């Protein structure tokens, strides 16, 4: 049994962590957040230079040919730093083409997605909490007409992988569609409503199981982001409790607060194993992968949202302010919780997948 990260994985994480420590400090994140920038382009370029978007793209197309666990641990780090990057949509777009594209499509798009020269995203949601493939009503075909909602960074993307009735299609920048930016709660990951007006689309040829795997991949990445954010928030709250003095002593010496923090850590830390397993199952345990992904998404995002509320409470007034970091994580938690469908939805799916 080796349920741990390899030395190579740890080394890869270290280099990305160094970059984030250097270029994605809280001041920088606040600046992006406050200005409502689309994302931190400089940081994204550096992440691309390190191969973050290339992780799951096959080596034949300029990628690193690694696995979901490798992608997920990077997602965790980006969650830990609340990194304002278009990682989620981009990684899923690349994975979609790698899974469901034909040779020509892969050759055409994957190398540029791996290098970050092109920015990709996925357009799945259709509003009214309709997220999953069997709910996609946007008509398939070589020209798309209709609306997709809550699409990450659609306005900046060079290509959109669109979920359509019974399949997937790629729409490139310049086709007939318009983007309206949502006044989004999580300004580290802006969302657009995309309206297609007969947009030229190139169908991909996914097997049904490919589409399932994409949904699972998204669930795993959201869970990883949630764990990273929740863990960082817990650490930050503990650090604050060790520093803040009231009644002549650090508040972290009061048992009431210690127990709150212990409960918070108790909810958060074990999620690591859950999301690791979901990522590992995606790679290596096919019969458990769907269930594990649904459960990881449901549980980790639920705990993250609660942990972010607990963090505000433990910080007191400062935690409720705009200038503090806490609300940025709080809002990332809201994103992770909602995007792809709320936790109970995935619990019900899990129950069905388990054969209950």
């Amino acid at each position, binding site marked *: *049994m*080796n*349920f*741990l*990260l*390899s030395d190579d994985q740890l080394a890869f994480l270290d280099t990305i962590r160094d970059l984030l420590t250097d270029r994605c400090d809280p001041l920088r994140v606040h600046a992006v957040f406050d200005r409502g920038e689309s994302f931190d382009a400089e940081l994204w370029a550096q992440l691309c230079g390190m191969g973050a978007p290339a992780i799951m793209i096959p080596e034949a197309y300029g990628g690193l040919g690694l696995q979901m*666990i490798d992608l997920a641990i990077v997602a965790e780090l980006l969650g830990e730093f609340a990194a304002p990057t278009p990682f989620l949509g981009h990684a899923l777009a690349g994975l979609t083409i790698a899974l469901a594209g034909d040779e020509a499509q892969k050759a055409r798009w994957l190398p540029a997605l791996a290098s970050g020269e092109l920015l990709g995203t996925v357009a799945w949601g259709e509003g009214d909490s309709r997220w999953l493939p069997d709910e996609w009503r946007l008509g398939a075909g070589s020209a798309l007409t209709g609306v997709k909602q809550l699409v990450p960074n659609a306005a900046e993307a060079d290509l959109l992988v669109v979920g359509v009735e019974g399949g997937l299609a790629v729409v490139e920048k310049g086709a007939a569609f318009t983007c309206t930016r949502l006044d989004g709660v999580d300004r580290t990951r802006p969302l657009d409503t995309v309206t297609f007006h007969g947009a030229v689309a190139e169908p991909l040829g996914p097997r049904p199981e490919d589409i399932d795997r994409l949904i699972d991949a998204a669930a795993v990445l959201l869970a990883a982001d949630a764990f990273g954010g929740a863990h960082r928030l817990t650490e930050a709250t*503990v650090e604050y*409790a*060790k520093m803040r003095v009231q009644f002549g*002593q*650090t508040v*972290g*010496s009061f*048992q009431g607060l*210690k*127990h709150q*923090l*212990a*409960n918070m*850590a*108790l909810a958060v*830390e*074990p*999620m*690591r*194993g*859950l999301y*690791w*397993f979901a990522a*590992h199952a995606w790679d*290596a*345990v096919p019969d458990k992968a769907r269930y*594990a992904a649904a*459960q*990881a998404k*449901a*549980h980790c995002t639920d705990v993250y949202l609660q942990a972010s509320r607990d963090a505000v409470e433990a910080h007191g007034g400062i935690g409720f302010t705009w200038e503090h970091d806490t609300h940025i994580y709080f809002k990332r938690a809201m994103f992770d919780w909602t995007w792809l469908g709320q936790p*109970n939805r995935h*619990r*019900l799916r*899990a*129950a069905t997948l*388990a054969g*209950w």
Partner: protein
Amino acid sequence: MELGFGPEFDSFRAEVRGFLKAHWPPADGDVKSSANENAFVHAAIGEGYLHRNVPRRFGGSEQEPDIVRAEIIREEFRRARAPSGRIPVTGKLVVPTLLDCGTEEQCAQLIPKTLTGEIRWAQGFSEPNAGSDLASLRTRAELVGDEWVINGQKIWSTGAHLATHIFLLVRTEPDAPRHEGISYLLVDLRQPGVTIRPLTQMTRQKEFCEVFFDDARTPAGMLVGERGKGWYVTRSTLKHERSGIGGLTWPLSMFRDLLQLARSIERDGRPAIEDPAIRIELAAIDAELQSLTYSTYRATSHDVHAREVGWFQTMSKLYSTNLAQRISKLGRDIIGDQFLDMSGPNLKMIERFMISLSMSIAGGTSNIQRNLIAERSLGLPRDQHFESASKATPR
């Protein structure tokens, strides 16, 4: 990353299976015979499969510590329904303590008989006025000639009414600071100075006992470790309470029972398991169960590779406790009105609803666990009043 045991362990697993195939069930097919069981356990010890941490001269099989091999043995023995030479948990606590801190004579006299079940142990730590604050204990022992004379009362001694011996914390140095005045004694319970009274618990069962000592005696040589250093000896006992992968068996089987219950009980003419509210809660429970499972696998893997486990180190007990209580509450929801009927078919669920509560008390209360998580994992300041055995450093 891999979750199996890796190819290097395949041959070990095959070896264990080969042994089991040859030895269990026994040739005459009588799996209930204690002679057969003893012969099997003896053979398994000979192969190095059971009592691995105990030296051969004390009746064990003296193997290098190896969590992975131990787990393979546990799995294969369970699969073959073979006897595991299991001794009660109190015995599991005292044996490593003796090995760490006992004399050669104590080990030779007590460990072999503990492994065969001839000696059965009770734990005598808590007292009516020394619960979480164990160091305030008042049962005393005086050395008179070559015997310790013991007076006082212990409580919550699991299975003391079925035990032959007890390991005790007693105050031997009344003038010393409270942690320094405690000694660790081994006492034969079968003597006139000992009175054992089982307590009936809320489930109607009797598992815990009060044990009264009224000039009870034990030889001077039954002191473990140095006089006045018993507090540090218990650290060794408590260290062995940490559960590994084996600790997952119980919550997993509780959850299986819960699923079975949800399938078999009907609500509004349909199986309870078809109710969306129940399905959501089942999934939420299983997510926590899987979190516990994979965090345990992760911790075990990290132990094996000498890597820091991190925060999870202090969390298993409280996480399992909360999980068991959540499971028992869903059981309550599913059985409906049968929740009031102790002679109905769902007595087990009613009992679990009660028993799961004892988990937040026994072996360190949940609030003490929160202190441990806050102080040891999160590094928050130590509570000035909270002096757990963990605070003491072994000498």
